[in-house]
Every structure is written in structure tokens, then in C-alpha cells.
């Protein structure tokens, strides 16, 4: 393995060295008062070639979709088109507070994307400003809370399946709701009877993911929606898995009242190593008036932002969720993607996403333990029963998979099965890639069952770092470089 060691930038410092050129400071009468900084910041000085080499070498230690199959369940690691990047940069040099007459094109982008999302989902309204999926969940539940206040009803419970992503109960709890968990039934869907039994006048909403986090479509969803509405509650749908049905099924037709969409999942905006994302929230008629500010309206005079509640007419925005107008950079990328695929392309996206996941499921279910019978949607769920009589865990399989040149699937989620493997190939993977992945998984499963241990426990062997000590990191957190510690050569974490 070629040496890819790269010290921290702080360990490459030469005082006074600089990677930018700036002219000398013009003469001026200072207005800093006595607020001028005493002492320096402590930043290292590097030249441009050093900085470019440093971050290039760092990048080479990473896996990305561009380089590797990345079947993370519920993350939708699809190809990130470069056209998105080109078009996004056409809108980079616009200040959000410019007079609106000077940014009509930007406002129209937001309006067009909103229009596409409304048509694809069948829902009449969308709140564009949330910055991520979890932020969208907050927005959706806040809208529900605001609507209930206007109805004058005190409903304090939110029903959440045990298989839900952690953001669901975290968001509901943050908004002051108590969580009522509902288990899965034997088929992996939410236990309908248990859910129905929990419905009552104290329930504000249910939060379902559909398809759910086991990769299965909630068959009873229409009936559940009717029951929820009859009980006076709202139906929140976590749209993380929209890729399975985008362009084929409209959430409005399923009875959903509010659903966030992850533009960085279904609509190909890049994951960026952990953000930024965007989480616009689709809203039914009854909830639309409570959408937060700001939002874009289109009338005879053109496009404009409604930024204050007092300008919202009959709407009652529940407030503001972040600065300025929303994740514009993600809007331009998503709109570019949607225009590229069009209605027919998106139909095919969902089809191929579901086909790819089922192909993987069908090709592995004889050597691994599929958690549920029958076809899946866009992701396939296995558990660790097939490793029962071995010393190998889900984690070990994942680490061995890295040595085969693949990014592991999602592990240990959802929590409703033991040692979960959640595999979402997405539609942008070729059959050749899937076959290579399937072959690698079959080989690992077979080796595990045949009693191989060392190979797994020592994996990964070929990566820039071997298994890292997460216990040490959590017990003695070191979250930054410190000059004093670097000078202490007897310190334990010396480079």
C-alpha cells in the first residue's frame, strides 16, 4: 500500500507563509475602538501548492460514489451528475438580500422546483426552507403543532414505528410530544392493529416512513391514513425512501398530509461527506397555511418572497427555521437533475432502483438470512441469523467487504432485526457492479460459515487506517489539535 500519510496543516506551519496574495492595507482612520484582537489566532501558514497537495492526498483516503459501489440503505447513494455542479454555479454570486427585482431568475428556480415537487407528490403546497431531512421533520411537526393550536386541541402523542430512523422520535420529543412506539408485524410492516389501538383524541400525528426502513411498502397505508384522519390526527411521512416510488406513486394519493423530501437522496444533490442537504416539506391543504417564512409567491408582478408573517395574508406561518431563504445551491442542482430525467426518466429511476434491490435480494437470500419474505422495494434487508454458529458479526462482514473494494451497506439499522444489513444499490449501478458485489458477499458468507475468523477480525487490511479505537475516542475525547500537546513529545497520540 503506497504511503498516504499526511500530517495536519498545523504540523506544516511556517510563520508568515501565505497561500494568497493580498495588497498592502490602505491608509485609514481606524474605527475598531479598543476591540482590536490582542495576540494572534494561531493559524498555520502554508503556500498554495502545499494546500492543494494536502487536500488532494486527504481525498485519496476517501471512498466516494464516483469511485466505489456505496449501497448504504436509506441513504440513496446515487450518481451525482456534474451538470448539477455546472448549473448551480450560475447562481453563486447572488446575495439573498438584493432587491427582489434583481433576482427574479433565482426566485423562479425555487418556484419551478416547488412546482415539480408538487406535481410529483400530488400535494398542493411545499415549504422549501428546511436545510436537511431532520430539519424538514421539525418543520413538518411544527406545522402540525401550529395547526392543532388553531384547532384549539391539546394532542400530545406522536405514534412512531420501532423501525423508524432516530430523527423521528428525536424531532417529536424536541417539540414536546411523547412518543408511542409501535412494533413491526411478522411481515416487517408496521403492526396495523397495534397502531390502530393507539389512535385516540390525544394523538397529534403518526410518523411513518414509506417504503419503510425495512425496504417494504406499507400495504395498509391507505386504510391507516383513513383511520388516522378519523381520529383527528395528521399523517407525517418520512420521505427518505422516496426513490422507490418517485414518479410512479404520488404520496397525496396515499393519504399523506405532510412529507419531507431529501433532495440529497432522491434528487441526486451530493452528500458532500456529510452535507449540505435540503429537506423541503410537502403539505396538504389543511396544513399549508402554517408553512414557515420565507416562501416564494408568483403573481402578475413576478416572483417575490414573503418574509414576514404580517405579509402572509390569510396564512399563519409558524415562524422561521434558518437564516435567509433556503438551500439555494441544492435547489439549482435538484432542478437540473429533474429537468434532465423528466417525468419518464423519474419513472425509470424508481423502476430500476426497485429492480436492482430485488436482484440483490434474490441473489443473496440463499446464503444470507433475508429478514422478510417476498419482494422488497428499493432496499433489501438481511439480519445476522446466517452467522448464528460463527464468531463473525455484521460488523466483521462489513469490514471484510471494504477489503473487497466496496463501501459497506448500512449496518445495525433498522433496530427491529438483529445485526441488520440494509442494502440500497440505487438505479445508477450497472448489472456488472451488482454481480461483482453479489459474488463478494456470497464468498464472505460462505467463508464465515466455513469457520474463517482471522480474515474477518483483521479486516480491513488494505485501507489507509485499520480498525480504529472508538472506545478510546469517546473515553478521552481529543477534538482539536493543540500547540501545547504537540510540543509534548511524550504524549500518547504522537503522529
Amino acid at each position, binding site marked *: 500500500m503506497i504511503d498516504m500519510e499526511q500530517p495536519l496543516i498545523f504540523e506544516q506551519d511556517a510563520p508568515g507563509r501565505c497561500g494568497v496574495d493580498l495588497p498592502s492595507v490602505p491608509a485609514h482612520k481606524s474605527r475598531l475602538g479598543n476591540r482590536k484582537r490582542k495576540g494572534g489566532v494561531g493559524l498555520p501558514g502554508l503556500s498554495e501548492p502545499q494546500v492543494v497537495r494536502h487536500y488532494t492526498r486527504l481525498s485519496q483516503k476517501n471512498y466516494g460514489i464516483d469511485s466505489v459501489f456505496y449501497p448504504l440503505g436509506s441513504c440513496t447513494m446515487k450518481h451525482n451528475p456534474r451538470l448539477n455542479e455546472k448549473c448551480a454555479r450560475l447562481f453563486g454570486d447572488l446575495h439573498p438580500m438584493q432587491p427582489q427585482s434583481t433576482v427574479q431568475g433565482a426566485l423562479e428556480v425555487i418556484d419551478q422546483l416547488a412546482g415539480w415537487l408538487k406535481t410529483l407528490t400530488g400535494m398542493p403546497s411545499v415549504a422549501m426552507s428546511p436545510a436537511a431531512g431532520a430539519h424538514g421533520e421539525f418543520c413538518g411537526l411544527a406545522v402540525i403543532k401550529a395547526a392543532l393550536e388553531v384547532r384549539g386541541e391539546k394532542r400530545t402523542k406522536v405514534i412512531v414505528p420501532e423501525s423508524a430512523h432516530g430523527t423521528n422520535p428525536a424531532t417529536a420529543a424536541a417539540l414536546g410530544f411523547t412518543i408511542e412506539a409501535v412494533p413491526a408485524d411478522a411481515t416487517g410492516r408496521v403492526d396495523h392493529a397495534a397502531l390502530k389501538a393507539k389512535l385516540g383524541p390525544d394523538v397529534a400525528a403518526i410518523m411513518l416512513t414509506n417504503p419503510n426502513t425495512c425496504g417494504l411498502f406499507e400495504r395498509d397505508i391507505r386504510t391507516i391514513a383513513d383511520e388516522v384522519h378519523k381520529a383527528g390526527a395528521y399523517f407525517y411521512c418520512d420521505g427518505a425512501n422516496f426513490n422507490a416510488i418517485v414518479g410512479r406513486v404520488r404520496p397525496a394519493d396515499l393519504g399523506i398530509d405532510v412529507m419531507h423530501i431529501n433532495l440529497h437522496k432522491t434528487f441526486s444533490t451530493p452528500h458532500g461527506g456529510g452535507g449540505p442537504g435540503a429537506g423541503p416539506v410537502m403539505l396538504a391543504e389543511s396544513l399549508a397555511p402554517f408553512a414557515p417564512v420565507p416562501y416564494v409567491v408568483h403573481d402578475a408582478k413576478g416572483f417575490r418572497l414573503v418574509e414576514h408573517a404580517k405579509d402572509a395574508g390569510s396564512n399563519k406561518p409558524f415562524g422561521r427555521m434558518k437564516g435567509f431563504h433556503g438551500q439555494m445551491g441544492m435547489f439549482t442542482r435538484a432542478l437540473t437533475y429533474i429537468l434532465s430525467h423528466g417525468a419518464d426518466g423519474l419513472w425509470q429511476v424508481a423502476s430500476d432502483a426497485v429492480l436492482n434491490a430485488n436482484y440483490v435480494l434474490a441473489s443473496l437470500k440463499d446464503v444470507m438470512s433475508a429478514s422478510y419474505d417476498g419482494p422488497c422495494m428499493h432496499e433489501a434487508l438481511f439480519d445476522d441469523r446466517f452467522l448464528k454458529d460463527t464468531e463473525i458479526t455484521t460488523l466483521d462482514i462489513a469490514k471484510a467487504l471494504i477489503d473487497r473494494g466496496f463501501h459497506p451497506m448500512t449496518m445495525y439499522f433498522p433496530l427491529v432485526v438483529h445485526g441488520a444489513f440494509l442494502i440500497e444499490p440505487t438505479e445508477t449501478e450497472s448489472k456488472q457492479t451488482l454481480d461483482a458485489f453479489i459474488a463478494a458477499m456470497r464468498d464472505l458468507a460462505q467463508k464465515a460459515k466455513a469457520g474463517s475468523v482471522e480474515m474477518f477480525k483483521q479486516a480491513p487490511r488494505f485501507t489507509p487506517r485499520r480498525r480504529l479505537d472508538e*472506545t478510546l475516542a*469517546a*473515553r478521552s475525547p481529543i477534538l482539536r489539535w493543540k500547540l501545547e500537546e504537540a510540543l509534548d513529545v511524550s504524549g500518547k497520540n504522537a503522529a
Partner: protein
Amino acid sequence: MANVHFTKDHEWARLDGDVAVCGITEYAQKALGDVVYVELPPVGKKVKQGEPTAVVESAKAASEVYAPVDGEVVAVNDVLSSDPGKVNAAAMGDGWFFKLKPSNPAQLSGLMDESVYQNHIKELLAG
């Protein structure tokens, strides 16, 4: 182990004079993995049976530790702040979390004894 009582949430309580020493069981520490952090209650806090009283964190999980009986916290195991790994190494002994002065000692006999608790675990693993 004599005098030790168990809860269904994998806490144990051992009567030592008029004080109940409380901690989490071997099964719990194994399930959590390496413990990285423990949040202990303030001395003097009054708790009810089943009330979340402490928090135990591993790299991948976090759990509440519930009071096995009603009582008042009279001591906490400060060693766990600098050495959380003690919970893994000696869950039933030096890895104790807090000591309660039970306000209703009869509650202890309502908890499981060792053999009942071991059966409880067997059922969980089978289920």
C-alpha cells in the same frame, strides 16, 4: 450471589446494611460494549422505583439506568468518571453506580433473584 436482586431492565441491587448498592448486570455491560461515559445522579436526589437515575454510554449506545427501588441517593461511584471501563470489568462489584437508602425495603423482595433473572435472559435471547 446472595442478597442480590435483579430488575427486568438489567439493574441489580444488593443490600449492604441499610443501603442498596445498585449497578447494571453482566448481560447489560456485554450488550452495551465498552462503556465510555457514565452520568451519575446528585447525592441527595430522591427517586422512585423505575425512574431513570443514571445514564450509561458506550461508543454505539446509551441507556438509562433505572432505580430498582424507591429511595434517596446516598453515594455515587465517582471512580466511574475517570474509569468508565470499570463497568465492563466489574459490573457486579466495583462497577456499581449509586447507593440508595430504600424508603420501602419491601420492594426488594418483589424483584427477581438470580435464577429467575437468568431465566429472564434466556427468554430474551430466544425471543
